[in-house]
């Protein structure tokens, strides 16, 4: 047990997937079963390890960073290997290890073309290291490294296994395959944000006593060490880095392309975990270290979030491609998360936390379902689909359920994030411009109606009605055991979080309240 609490446990959760990925590459290609089995076992072990941390985690002190340690890493620049978790990162860490297990279960039978399980599974595991690492890192440089490690596997996942449809893209002379365009766009956008984010980190380092340690910088920041134009600029570049990842309007354009082009598992991981890295960065780094600047920027963030919500929903209404619709719905949902964060109130940030987890679970499931349907029907065009309920009853039922969860039906996970974010925006932190926030709240409320609109319309087009002649003759396979094994846990989680939101708030609330009281004094 000692090993779990002194940081070794967390380190294992972060690096076990990476080590497994290395071992995986050493297994000969012909041993396909062994490769799949090994990847599955290693992801399950990682998940169990992260679950074992739960009893060790002291929930009565959820605002303190726990189970971590600090080892000197790069002495010459005073960067340390400093890790730890608190109530904010714990749910996200568990979500990340959990979703990876499901992603690998799904991949056992449903590998995208070209089939090469070794490379694909190894990339998933490397990706997991990056994601877990970002959630536990307490050093800006360590955070940056993990934040970037995520890019490479995702780039290759989209680029190699992605959608091969050829299309014309503005600005390109020749037609280009969707996957190639989407993968490089994803990479360039994110790198653009994070290159500037790194400059921001360095700025903090030089003004803040030459340390990269997040807890120390929070201490400094709350005591007013960062002021003036300098701090405003630093917040702006951090904002740029995180907002690209979230993604916030108008930096979101990489997302629909990446999601549409990515293989099913890729979109699931992208939606469920990768987007959270950005919003997590706001809660962990930008707001506590630069509270005054966060306050100054909050109205702008709220307005952008509100635009994101409305824009995302309207864009959804215009989609004919099922996967693209879900991708745009992510823009809207992450808009709610960011609106909650912008309110800078306990209720708003708690909403953001539960919103992140719920979005991960629900949208992850939606991408699983749409990916599987695209595989069965060989099309994602909603105009051609229809009568899914009759053709694939299991998938159809799940799609109906998930769409309901996604539109924020009370009793399911999606409800809390949206509802509380609006509540937070109604009553933002003292001193913030109430008109702007109430305006954003109204926009958000209109957004929920639009969300319900496009999801129900999607259901009507895809699930209901009579199947067209195109599909009548075809032999269509409904969800098999592997798919159900990957999906049912998400369904259960959706209901659980919906009925007992305390599962998440129990962990996050203390941490959020203490973070805000430190930052804004009471």
């Amino acid at each position, binding site marked *: 047990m000692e090993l779990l609490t002194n940081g070794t446990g967390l380190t294992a959760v972060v690096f076990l997937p990476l080590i497994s990925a290395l071992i995986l590459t050493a297994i000969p290609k012909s041993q396909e079963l062994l490769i799949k089995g090994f990847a599955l076992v290693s992801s399950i072990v990682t998940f169990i390890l992260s679950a074992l941390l739960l009893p060790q985690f002291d929930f009565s002190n959820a605002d303190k960073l726990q189970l971590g340690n600090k080892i000197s*890493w*790069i002495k*010459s620049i005073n960067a340390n290997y400093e890790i730890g978790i608190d109530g904010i990162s714990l749910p996200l860490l568990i979500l990340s290890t959990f979703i990876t297990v499901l992603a690998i279960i799904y991949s056992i039978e449903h590998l995208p073309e070209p089939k090469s399980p070794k490379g694909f599974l190894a990339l998933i595991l490397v990706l997991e290291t990056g994601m877990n690492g970002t959630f536990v890192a307490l050093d800006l440089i360590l955070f*940056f*490294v993990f934040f*970037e490690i995520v890019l490479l596997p995702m780039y290759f996942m989209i680029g190699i296994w992605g959608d091969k449809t050829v299309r014309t893209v503005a600005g390109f002379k020749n037609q280009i395959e969707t996957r*190639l365009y989407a993968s490089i766009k994803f990479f360039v956008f994110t*790198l653009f944000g994070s290159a500037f984010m790194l400059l921001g980190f360095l700025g903090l380092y*030089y003004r803040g006593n030459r340390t990269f340690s997040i807890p120390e910088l929070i201490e400094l920041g709350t005591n007013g060490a960062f002021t003036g134009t300098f701090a405003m600029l630093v917040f702006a570049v951090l904002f740029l880095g995180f907002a690209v990842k979230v993604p916030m309007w108008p930096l979101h354009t990489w997302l629909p392309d990446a999601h549409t082009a990515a293989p099913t598992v890729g979109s699931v991981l992208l939606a469920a975990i990768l987007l959270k890295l950005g919003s997590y960065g706001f809660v962990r780094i930008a707001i506590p270290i630069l509270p005054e600047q966060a306050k100054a920027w909050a109205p702008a963030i709220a307005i952008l979030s509100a635009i994101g919500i409305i824009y995302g929903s309207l864009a959804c209404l215009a989609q004919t491609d099922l996967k693209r619709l879900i991708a745009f719905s992510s823009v809207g949902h992450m808009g709610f998360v960011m609106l909650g964060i912008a309110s800078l109130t306990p209720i708003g940030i708690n909403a953001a936390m539960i919103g992140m987890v719920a979005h991960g679970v629900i949208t992850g499931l939606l991408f699983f379902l749409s990916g599987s349907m695209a595989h069965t029907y060989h099309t994602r065009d909603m105009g051609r689909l229809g009568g899914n309920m009759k053709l694939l009853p299991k998938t159809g039922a799940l799609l109906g359920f998930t769409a309901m969860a996604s539109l924020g039906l009370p009793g399911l996970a999606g409800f809390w994030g949206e509802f509380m974010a609006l509540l937070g925006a109604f009553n933002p932190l003292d001193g913030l411009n109430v008109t702007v926030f109430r305006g954003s709240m109204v926009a958000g409320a209109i957004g929920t109606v639009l969300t319900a609109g496009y999801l129900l319309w999607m259901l009507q087009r895809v699930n209901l009605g009579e199947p067209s002649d195109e599909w009548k003759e075809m032999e269509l396979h409904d969800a098999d055991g592997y798919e159900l094994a990957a999906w049912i846990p998400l369904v259960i989680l959706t209901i659980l979080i919906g009925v007992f939101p305390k599962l998440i708030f129990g962990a996050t609330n203390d941490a959020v309240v203490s973070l805000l009281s430190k930052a804004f004094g009471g």
Partner: protein
Amino acid sequence: MTFLLSINFIESDKFYQGEYYYLLLSSLLGALVVSSSRDLLTIFIGIELASTPMFLLSGWKKGDRKSNEGAIKFFLLGVLSASLILYGFSLIYGLTGQLVFADISAYLLANSLGSSPVLLLSAILVISGIGFKISVVPFHSWAPDTYEGAPLPITAYLSVSSKATGFVALIVLLTKVFESSGQSWGVILAIVAGATMTLGNLVALQQTNPVRLLAYSSISQAGFIIAPLAVSGITGNYQDGIFASVTYLIIYAFMNIGAFLSVHLFTNFTKSDNFYEWGGIAKHSPLAGVLTTVFFFSLAGIPPLGGWFAKFVVFRSLLSTGEIIGISLAIVGAINAVIALVYYARISKVIWMDELKNPEEEKSFEFQSPLKVVGALTVLITFVAGIFPGIFSYLGEVSSIFFGN
């Protein structure tokens, strides 16, 4: 520094001519002379000893017109640069009457000649002369042609060792001799650095020949290397700037050799020097594919590969002072890092994601064992530099202390 240079030997294992080794060794000797010299004559001899054999070696492929063209260009500009350096030196000698660095700077200090126009002129001449050697804008035009024409190991040597020699000479001269006029040459160098990064990158975007692509990319990397030096000249905090430049140089050396190795392997395999025709060859040799990916992404500066730390120390040093020039250079650098990613990623896109040209064709992929050793060594160092950069920053620190006092 010796450590940095010696690695190149392995690379040249596949040429058997005695003269080849003789010339390479002389060049290496020159490089070592440069890094240990402390007066103007020795350093000049060192620079020339390092570069003269390269004139011959870059024209080694006698029958090849490109090789000849590149060698001639290299030779003419090399001689021009030598004369520029020499002219610069003669001005200093005329001004101070001294040859030893320590005496020169003592003399300048004693007579407060730090801002004399003659000294500045001489600094500009020296920067231009060495600028040819390290191929910074606007003295870069020979590099792509020579790189393309020269045998690949020589190109690797040119882009790594010869360049390192040039940088060492530049660092030594600027910080030891022209120490007192840092304000003025710092600004010039900063402009050169910004232009070099941007121009190198933008032209690299257009390349289809992998060697030319690497040539332009190494021009842009040179911009990153001199940027901290420029800022340190303005602020007078040499230790920090040298630390960043040297760390960058060391890490850059390994990943660039690796990149040339990959290019060498694939050009030999496909017999094509247009990398767009390399579609899907990673399937023939996943090992070489992975190596290539590692090197190119490391050059792009993606963690956890070595390149990120190199870029990081440069940004760190640029921002350390809060000088407006440093900050603007850092922003230019950040934008360039993103531009560079596009063409570095393009190579791995082609080898992994594009379709094979002739899927039926069975060709055996040749990956000779000496090359494997180079590959293994450089890839190992690339990873170590990224994950435990402490080791390399230690080397950088040593040199900054060495130059600092």
